[in-house]
Each structure stands twice: as C-alpha cells, then as structure tokens.
C-alpha cells in the first residue's frame, strides 16, 4: 500500500502509493498518529448511543439486569444450578457485566465497517480505528452496569477481595477478545454480508460456552484450561474470583484465555490489514 520515505526530505513527507500484495505490516505508528480520530469516533458513538430514547443510559443497566432476573428464575430457582455458594443473582450478574461489554463490542465492531461505509469510501485513515472505537465506546455502558454490580454486592453483603486490582487487566482481556473477533468478522462482513446473520447465533452460542449461568467447576479440573481457550471463560471466572472471592483458582484458566485472546487479536489484525485495501471498493 503506502510507505513513507523520510530519507528524501525531512520537512516534506513523501508518500508512495502502489499496489500491495499479500500480508502487510500493521503500521501501528500511523494508528497512533490518528489517535485523535479514534477519540472523536468513540466520543461520537457514546454521545449518539442513547439519543432519542426515553430511558437513555438506563438501558446500559437494564439489559444485563433483566437477563440476570431471567437467569435467576430459570437457572437458579427452577433448574437449581449451583452457584459457587453465592446467591444466584450476584453470581450471574458478576458474569453478565463483562459479558455484555464483550458481546456489545463484538457485534458493534463486526458491523462497524459496513456501518461506516460512507466514511470509508470518502476519506483515508487507518481503518483499524473503526472497530477499535466501537469497542471503546462500550466502556461507558460497562461502567454503568459495574456500578449496579457494586450496589447488588452491598445488598447481598459481599465485599470484594484484594484481587480487584486485577479487574482492569480482566477488562482488557475481554476487550482484546472482542476486538480480535471483531477484526475478523468486520473484515469478512465487508465481503460477505452473511456475517450479519451469523453474529446473533455466535454470541448466543458463545454465551452458553461461557460459565455465565453455571460455574466452570462443573467441569473436571483437567479440562478447564482447554475449556478456557474460550477467552471469556478466563474473564468471567476472573471477575467472580476478584470481586466475589470464589475459590476457583482461575490462574491457569486466565493464562490459557489470554494466550487464545492474543492469537485472535494478532491474527485478526493481520487479516484485517490484508483485506483493508479492498474495503473502499467492496463495502
């Protein structure tokens, strides 16, 4: 694609535009130069998100909260699913808060390129900015529902352990996973609109492959790190461990999850970059 050759003249940047083939560099430096655009796009998504809704930002809390109520009724009360010795509502809500952040980021970023078609066809900027900003914009929702989680904890008389210092890292893990999948799906979505129909299935399926409604210790110890190749397993168990003090020993699971998330992110980023040159023609 394009390379900047600084050797010719220091003051005037020279850009060379030529056909690119195969795998290309990620150009993270350029992405850094466009951080203001990233900031403004994130800011726009947040600003616009609950415009012209009656309940506004309350939706951010209502969505996971209502899911928690349904789960508590059906899985907690009716099916009597164990919950690590915790009250079922707090057990499932502590998982639903990071999960909602992940699922929102996944669907938003997967649809982001197609949704920004007009921008992509008319302006140049590193396209990575688009899916990244759609994930970042989910942080406000996360913060709101996290406050709700704290309220619930106080209600149930549960106090967080010292391990809460790991929460930012766990949130990052959720974000990285979401972005990794989002990069793959958004680039695929440009060419194959089938992706749009796959996303709801994918998130639903993924939700049941993640210990949200049930604890992961239903699985034999030996299988847990393999189970945790689903990065959200590490995130969810990590959240419960850090906030609610479950004794699940999530260390090995989090390591496996982080590795899996990293593989997703790096492969996703390279795939995205490779497809990037076609976006404007296909979207």
């Amino acid at each position, binding site marked *: 694609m394009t390379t900047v050759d600084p050797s010719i003249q220091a003051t005037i940047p020279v850009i*060379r*535009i030529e*056909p690119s083939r195969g795998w290309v560099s990620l150009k993270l430096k350029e992405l850094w130069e466009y951080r203001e*655009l990233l900031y*403004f796009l994130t800011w*726009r998504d947040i600003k616009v998100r609950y415009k012209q809704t009656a309940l506004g930002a309350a939706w951010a809390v209502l969505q996971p909260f209502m899911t928690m109520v349904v789960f508590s009724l059906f899985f907690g009360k009716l099916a009597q699913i164990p919950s690590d010795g915790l009250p079922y509502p707090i057990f499932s809500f502590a998982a639903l808060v990071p999960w909602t952040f992940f699922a929102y980021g996944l669907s938003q970023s997967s649809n982001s390129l197609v949704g920004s078609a007009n921008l992509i066809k008319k*302006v140049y900027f590193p396209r990575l900015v688009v899916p990244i900003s759609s994930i970042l914009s989910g942080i406000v929702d996360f913060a709101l529902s996290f406050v709700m989680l704290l309220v619930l904890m106080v209600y149930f008389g549960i106090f967080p352990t010292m391990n809460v210092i790991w929460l930012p890292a766990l949130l990052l893990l959720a974000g990285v996973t979401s972005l990794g999948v989002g990069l793959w799906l958004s680039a695929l979505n440009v060419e*194959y609109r089938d992706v749009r129909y796959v996303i709801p299935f994918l998130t639903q399926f993924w939700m049941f492959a993640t210990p949200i409604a049930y604890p992961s210790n239903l699985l034999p110890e030996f299988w847990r790190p393999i189970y945790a190749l689903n990065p959200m397993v590490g995130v969810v168990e990590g959240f419960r461990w850090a906030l609610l003090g479950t004794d699940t020993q999530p260390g090995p699971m989090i390591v496996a999850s982080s590795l899996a998330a990293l593989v997703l992110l790096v492969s996703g980023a390279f795939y995205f970059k490779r497809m990037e040159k076609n976006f404007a023609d296909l979207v």
Partner: protein
Amino acid sequence: MSDTAIRVEQLGKFYKIGAQKAKYKTFRDTLAHAAATPARMARSLFSRNGQAKTDDNTFWALKDISFEVKRGEVVGIIGRNGAGKSTLLKILSRITDPTTGFAEIHGRVGSLLEVGTGFHPELTGRENIYLNGAILGMSKADIERRFDEMVAFAEVEKFIDTPVKHYSSGMYLRLAFAVAAHLEPEILLVDEVLAVGDAQFQKKCLGKMGEVAKEGRTVLFVSHNMAAIDNLCSDVIVLCTGELAFKGKTSTGIEQYLSGLATAENSQVDLSLRNRPSWALPWIVDARVLNTEGKQQSNFGLGSDVTIELDFRTPNGEKLRRPVMGLVVNHSVRGTVGAINSLMTGFEPNKSEYSMGRIRCKISGTPFLQGLYTVDLWLGDGPRDVDTVTGALSFSIEATDIYGTGRSPFATLGIALIRASWEIEATRPVLVAHKD
C-alpha cells in the same frame, strides 16, 4: 529536491464488474470459487501479470496514467461520467489501491471527495465541526484555532449548539463546506463538491477555492463546471474512458474535451440512456436538431434558424390531451441560457388527443454566441410534467461573418448575440444649444 508535488507513473485501476454489480458475495460462491483456485494459481504463475488479464467482466477504470503536478499548480481534471476522474482522486487520497503503477505525493494531502463526510444528524453544529475536522485529518488544536472562522464562514453562529438534523439543507452544506475549506494541507484533492447547493453557496465556495489556489497550494480539482475550471485552473487533465487524453493548458484542454463531446453526442441521440428523473415516463422517443430545410444538422452559423424536433409516443392506449413541448438551452460552459415552452407562448395543439406525434420548435435567428449548446427536452400534458430528458441534444454555433466585416463578436464576453443598429449625429455643446 525538485518542486514536484504529485508524480503519477503508469497508474492503473482494474475492476471486476461482477464484484461491483453484485456488491457482495456469499460463502457458497467462494466455496465454488475456491475449488477452482489451484488451477487459476497455476495459470497465473505463467501469465505475465496474473491480475491484469482482460476478459468480459473486467474493466480498467484507469489505464496507464502518467503525469506530474508541480508545487503550487492548480490542475483541473475533466472528462465525461465514468472517465475515471473520481477513481484517480480516490487512489491519490489512498482510499483505494491502484492495480498497476505508482503515485508519489510530496506533502500532506487533504482530500475533499464529499462535503460533510461523517456528519451525524444527532450532534450539534459545534460537535460536528470537531468530528468532521478530525475525520478530514485536522488536529484538535487546529480545529480550536480556526473554530470561529469556520462558524463565521458558515453563518450559523446562532445555531451552533443545535443538532444539525434541525438545520436547513443550506445551513448544513455551508457548515460542512466551512470545515473542509479550512483544511490546511499542502496538497488538496477536491471532487465536484461545488455541484451542490444554491448559486450563492457555489459562488462562495468558488471564491474560497480561488483563495486557496492563490495561497500557493497544490490543488487537483474535478468538476463538470467548465467555467469554474477555466477560472481556477492553469492546467487541465482530460480523461477519456480511463486514459489520459490531454494534459496541458486549460483553454486547449477544455476545447478538446468539448469538441470530443460534440462529435460523440451529435450523431445519434440515444434517449434511453439519458438521465431522466424518477417521475419521468419515457414518452419522448426521439428528437433531432434541424436546419431550415428540415435536414439534420449540428453546426450552425451565428444567428441561424434552428429547429428542434421532438417525437413522442404513448404506450398502450394512454393519450396526451394537450401535448406541450418545452426546451432549455444550456451553454456548455456558462450554464443555462434560457427556456421556453409551447404553453407559455400560447400555442395550442389542433387535436383533442394524441398517442403519437411530432412537435417542432423553430428558433428564428438564434441569439446565441459561438460555442457548444445542449438542449434539455420536456414533454407535458397541459401543465402536468410527463417526461424530461437532460442534455438530450446538442448543437454548436460557429463564428461566422454575420456582420459582413470579417469580424465576429467576442466569444469570451457573455453568451448573447446582440443585434443592434447604430446611429450617429454631430452634437453641439449643451449650453449653446440651450441658448438657441
């Protein structure tokens, strides 16, 4: 270092028409495609440039384009629709990749392929300025520094904190252009953004473009507005079906482009391919320009009689009760010259219904200066719009010796051929005349 701003070498862009028409594929297609891939890869190993084969569903939007633009030059890019103008700007803006060749750009590029890209209707004017500025590549500090200037240029001071969805379309456009106009790159790529808005807005935009050009920035400017190109650009690039047809002085380029248009458009008019608005019923089936003998002709001398003839046919049993023919004459560079229709002149058809017919409009002694003119046709039923075809016909007026003096009127001064008679008498000083 040289004073080159843009260097383009053998640039080409190749599209698969299939990929353009069926905008997106499905997995099934790809699976079928994948099965055939090994064979194709093997073949492309042996063909000289695997990607650049030409078969039926592929085409070159740009082919072998090479040119150079010096620093501070303002260059217009002209050509018919589909000539590759926008593709060229998209490649230079790095929005899409070229297939062959390369381009070198010396300096920061700002491209303006559309005004108001990324504007969000729910955000206020102020918020959109920041957002749009960031999208166009301005830093937050730059935007803050020039914020007041932009607001003043857009004349929206009072509504700056109102969501832009409540703006009138004029305000919206002014605000969008204001942000774009305050970009400060060394090289500016502009695509037909002046084609929107009312006359006053266009004038303002043109003025701003002129300023930018005078500041010594390099500008590449795509437009169909020949007057704007003529006014702003020192040089033009003429593109014709993806190839570079001309690069050089503006006046020569425009002339060549227009004469190319004339020969292409005069011969046979294909009304089905012309632009019709969505409401138009395709009842105008043919049209032609005739001379006084009723023969088809496309070049006329100054002041000649020109007849425009229109054939209409209504489909399955529909009737035109009161056929009305209208026409708009446009100068190819300077825009609309005038319009007339049979209803306003009091012409009444002699039958009560028509399903097929031919209407002739004779313009006696055309009052147009030498140049190329296009005619938009209009068909109505009484005051009701039935059909209209923009640019349906064209004819040219040649500078002939109308005065019998060997001199012809100045083609550069206006568009109207003024007929005049002169008188002269010797006069005495006024005061003296009074005393008499």
